[in-house]
């Protein structure tokens, strides 16, 4: 029976295979989803003035992307620039105006560089010579 019906089975090349039923692993708690890097979306980067900052943590709860972090053992505000989309909500919510918005292009680093957005392996060839 198995042999007889073999011809109906689609052989899926390794590089094209995707998870069974599209069921994928969840990221870790307090982790990241590195398949969707969004730092490249940012036009304005949030920059915090630690002297002004009163650590009220309003900005922590204002970020839709969970990119406002507590660093230095929870003593300071920091940003996960790999994912910050630069929306500016942290700047708006800050009661002491401690977060500035600076054009991203004026910085040398801070954005993960991607060769392509979500390139499927079997499509890669189309981009080659």
């Amino acid at each position, binding site marked *: 029976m198995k042999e007889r019906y073999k011809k109906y089975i689609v052989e899926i090349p390794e590089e094209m295979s995707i998870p069974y039923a599209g069921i994928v692993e969840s990221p870790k708690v307090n982790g990241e989803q590195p398949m969707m890097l969004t730092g490249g979306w940012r036009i304005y980067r949030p920059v915090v003035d630690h002297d002004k900052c009163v650590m009220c943590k309003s900005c922590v709860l204002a970020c839709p992307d969970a990119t406002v972090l507590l660093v230095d053992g929870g003593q300071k505000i920091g940003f996960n620039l790999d994912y910050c989309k630069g929306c500016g909500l942290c700047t708006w919510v800050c009661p002491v105006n401690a977060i500035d918005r600076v054009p*991203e*292009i004026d910085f040398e680093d801070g954005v993960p560089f991607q*060769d392509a957005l979500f390139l499927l392996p079997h499509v890669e060839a189309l981009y080659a010579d």
Partner: protein
Amino acid sequence: MAKTTEITVWATGVVQDKEGRDVCLVLTEAAFSEGFFTQAFDNYVDLPDRINVQVRKYARISDAEIENKFEYENHRPNIIGVAEATIMKGINVCKGLQDGGYLIINSTKAPEDLLKYVPEKERKRLKAIACVDALGIAPEQLIDYSGAEGAEDVSAIGLGLGAAMAGAIAAVSGLVKKESVLGAAANRTAAKRGYDEVKIKVLK
């Protein structure tokens, strides 16, 4: 064999959705008036559009009927437009660029300053890189969703930044004549200034 020029314009999601589309529409409209076969289309795969996401708008201009009209993307573009220079920091906008291609960026910076964001492999293929202060020329960035989902654009084509960018692309690539671009853009002045004020650095 038909000679087809593929144009990919990178823009910021929602904010420049209309402007990015306008660059393609103005260029194809101009080319059509010169007798070319044309196609202007959005990146359907990545729709719906999200604020700040890098979006791609595409155009194809050919001397014969376009046969690969249904392809979702321009895999091997000849011309790259970048409506917001910051996008280049995060993504290789020149991926798949044909040899002898052009890169035109909306920026107040000099072309040399932005070359560093083009990886070595693609840099070798560039014939010229150019910058135009499109936002300075036409600060309008019209938000209009009417054309995004396959419907017709309600607002006029080429009112703001898009017109200046289209003018600059025409000037750099020589793809279409100056008069045709001016004729196709609603904001004639912006297209003209884009054409005239673009700063070009020829690489080979």
